[in-house]
């Protein structure tokens, strides 16, 4: 089971060149009765060869993660089970093996990297020890040799001070660093197959690029077979050799990467590729007319972390010298990585946070100088759409009430407000009857539509949308973006669009402000920022966009969205 020569990686064990590394034949996975469909994965057949990256693409619920979990014996027992088919590893059916033998494969021959680096590591165990556990389970190495190997592994995945880092607890590491630790852990026993389940989805773009580069180089160096699960065609274009597209548990398209990316056959694949957000060359610059609606001047906000009776708190500057102008009808994109302070600025404008200094002028009135009572009328004028459609709607209130509550609080007649709620639901593309239902009856995309209707009920002049689509699937993301753009044009709304995704910003914004570490490093028209970025950081962000070398097939390019609401 364990290899005699250790460490140092050798040529992959290929018993027979004609037997693929992994051969999935007619795999079906059954869901418990009462689920929305009987089979999570339906008659799935594909192969994975050594020295190959197979990208499995699909939206949430497509069964792509279930397939990986079945391979690793991670299906939630006993509710979800394999109903048929086989999973042949080097010609031997994994599913027919006794548990002990399967356990030897897991982490030994087949390793897995998960999506959420923040939660995938045990918070109470030093990272070196967590990697060492894998070596302990699969190799006869004594403790000192394990320790040495752990340090080597941490070094190989590009972590600084590996010897020191091995003794750190996970909470000391950033998301990117934790994902590197996860990769080191997966590589510990030199597996033949590496399964990566959306390993970069939770990371910032620049970190995503680094991790993708790392994964690709390690795969090439060790000739591993790799199953890379993703929903992002940009990532596919970046790394895939072959692509399998899944929908509702079925394989809909399967082929070489260049074929699937450039000549997609199945309508679903075509739809997915068409939803990939991309910069539209022909978008008009926004004509700034009239007086600015909102001007933020030198806004500064410092948070104090920790502290107590006898301890001094640590100041963290979330926003420093932030200045921004939004004209009526203009969509301004605020782009930056996590922790850059973009949400702090958004929340300051809505009045959820009080900045330490600076001015926020709305139609000439400084909102920061107002007391709670004076600020109240402006709460109507500036409304927010939140990121997480699952957490931002009260689960115990009916949709109609959620939408009507705002206007009622401002003295509107309840009957009228509810009638208006139905109209708004129709406007965001939901049935009026949705008003009588509860949030849990709706999908993420539908909930986000409710969130938008709720904001619109207040008849705002400015909409602050904080990552409104980042929790949604690509195709749903496209629909919500279209809805936002449509409403903005119809109502002549100005919008501050906060996002970490430059591609999304490119699609909807007239003007883009790029933030980094609490500062706006560059602000200009979308055209200028994308074609002639001035700041080095903006350039590195653009450079990090996955699959930028790939040109979306012309027939799938979206018609340009016309900018100004004239």
């Amino acid at each position, binding site marked *: 089971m364990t290899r005699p020569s250790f460490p140092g990686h050798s040529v992959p064990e290929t018993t027979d060149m004609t037997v693929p590394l992994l051969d999935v034949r007619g795999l079906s996975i059954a869901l418990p009765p009462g689920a929305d469909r009987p089979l999570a994965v339906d008659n799935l057949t594909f192969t994975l060869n050594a020295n190959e990256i197979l990208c499995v693409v699909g939206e949430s619920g497509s069964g792509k993660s279930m397939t990986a979990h079945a391979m*690793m014996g*991670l299906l939630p027992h006993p509710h979800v089970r394999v109903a048929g088919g086989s999973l042949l590893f080097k010609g031997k059916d994994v599913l027919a093996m006794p548990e002990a033998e399967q356990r030897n494969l*897991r982490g030994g021959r087949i390793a897995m990297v998960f999506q959420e680096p923040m939660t995938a590591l*045990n918070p109470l165990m030093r990272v070196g020890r967590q990697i060492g*556990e894998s070596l302990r*389970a699969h190799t006869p190495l004594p403790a000192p040799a394990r320790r040495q190997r752990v340090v080597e592994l941490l070094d190989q995945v590009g972590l600084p001070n590996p010897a020191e880092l091995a003794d750190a607890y996970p909470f000391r590491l950033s998301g990117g660093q934790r994902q590197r630790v996860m990769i080191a852990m997966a590589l510990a026993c030199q597996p033949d197959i590496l399964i990566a389940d959306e390993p970069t989805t939770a990371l910032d773009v620049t970190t995503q690029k680094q991790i993708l580069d790392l994964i690709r180089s390690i795969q090439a160096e060790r000739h591993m077979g790799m199953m890379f699960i993703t929903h992002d065609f940009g990532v596919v274009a970046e790394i895939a050799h072959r692509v399998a597209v899944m929908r509702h548990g079925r394989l809909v398209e399967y082929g070489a990467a260049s074929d699937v990316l450039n000549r997609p056959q199945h309508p679903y694949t075509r739809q997915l590729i068409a939803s990939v957000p991309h910069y539209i060359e022909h978008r008009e610059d926004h004509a700034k007319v009239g007086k600015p609606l909102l001007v933020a001047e030198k806004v500064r906000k410092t948070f104090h972390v*920790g502290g107590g009776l006898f301890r001094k708190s640590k100041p963290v500057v979330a926003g420093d010298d932030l200045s921004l102008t939004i004209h009526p009808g203009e969509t301004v994109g605020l782009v930056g990585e996590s922790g850059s302070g973009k949400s702090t600025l958004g929340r300051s404008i809505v009045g959820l946070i009080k900045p330490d200094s600076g001015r926020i002028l709305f139609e000439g009135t400084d909102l920061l100088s107002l007391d709670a009572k004076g600020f109240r009328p402006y709460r109507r004028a500036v409304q927010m759409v939140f990121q997480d459609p699952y957490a931002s709607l009260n689960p115990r209130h009916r949709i109609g009430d959620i939408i009507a509550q705002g206007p009622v609080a401002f003295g509107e007649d309840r009957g009228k407000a509810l009638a208006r709620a139905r109209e708004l639901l129709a406007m965001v593309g939901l049935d009026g009857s949705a008003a009588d239902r509860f949030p849990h009856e709706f999908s993420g995309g539908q909930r986000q539509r409710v969130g938008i209707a709720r904001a619109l009920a207040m008849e705002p002049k400015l909409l602050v949308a904080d990552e409104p689509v980042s929790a949604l699937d690509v195709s749903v993301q496209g629909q919500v973006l279209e809805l936002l753009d449509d409403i903005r044009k119809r109502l002549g709304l100005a919008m501050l669009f906060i996002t970490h995704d430059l591609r999304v910003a490119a699609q909807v914004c007239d003007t883009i402000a790029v933030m980094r570490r609490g500062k706006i490093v560059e602000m200009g028209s979308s055209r200028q920022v994308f074609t002639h970025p001035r700041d080095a950081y903006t350039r590195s962000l653009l450079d990090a966009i996955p699959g930028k070398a790939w040109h979306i097939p012309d027939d799938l390019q979206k018609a340009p969205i016309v900018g100004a609401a004239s």
Partner: protein
Amino acid sequence: MLGFAHLFASRLVKALAILIAIVVMNFFLVHAAPGDPAMVMAGEAGAADEKFVEQLRQQFGLDRPLHEQLATYVGKIAQGDLGFSYRQQRPVWDILAERLPATLILTLTAFLLALAAGVALGTLAAITVGTWADSAITVVALLAYATPIYWIGLMMSLLFSIQLGWLPAFGYETIGAGYTGLAHAADVAAHLILPVITLALFYMAGYARLTRASMLEVRGQDFVKTAKAKGLSQSHIVTRHVLRNAILPVITVAGIQAGQLVGGSILIETVFAWPGIGRLAFEAVLQRDYQVLLGIFLVTSVMVILFNILTDILYGLVDPRIQAAR
């Protein structure tokens, strides 16, 4: 380690401030109750004579203004003098010192037993979730939690002492037996069994339920999936990954309860005639023995504070994130 010493020092400083506040509040609380010891003593002596009561008050300093009494009290406490019980004609400290060991033996044994058994049963229930073993543990825990503690005590004593005659029904030791050394220890241990089990059952039920729920929650977390994907054995995953994380809320609750153990055994001590602090408190209330009552308040407060500090330190040891957050 330096951070640890710093943490400990800052905890002690805070504890001292809290202690002073408690001393002052206790004093006012006791004086807010109607009636004073002079009245009670005079009543018991059968002489309801105003002059006699006045004389008693003068003798005990009860006629002084309240703030003067407070200053005297706080001053004495600072010197380690808990005062003098005129009811029992002995220093309060001597009375407490006599009763404290009995209570500590009873409650600490019960506490440790409850913790060990509760965590073990909770873990067992969590790993066998949905089977008969899980159901049995859940039912037993629910019964133990819901049944009044004194009733269990009475029934146990009825069964094991009166019906079966295996164990002594009450008391701390066999009076007049004059055991020494090991024989004495064995005698006390025999007396200890019933009250300890009675007290432990109740707490054990809580810990078992908490451990079970916490284990089930942790079991669904991502890092447990990672551990499985590493090919670790089931027992390794349960002990090293699940239990280690699931124990954190148990420590929190146990820490709070440990502080209350000294004062929380009044019922048990009454049922089993255990000569501890709990019964002393009960008697002191009936006799309006202010000095003893204040002494008990102080001792139990110190216990609560002490166990809180201990819990914090333990927490810092178990969870590395806690120390960093300070």
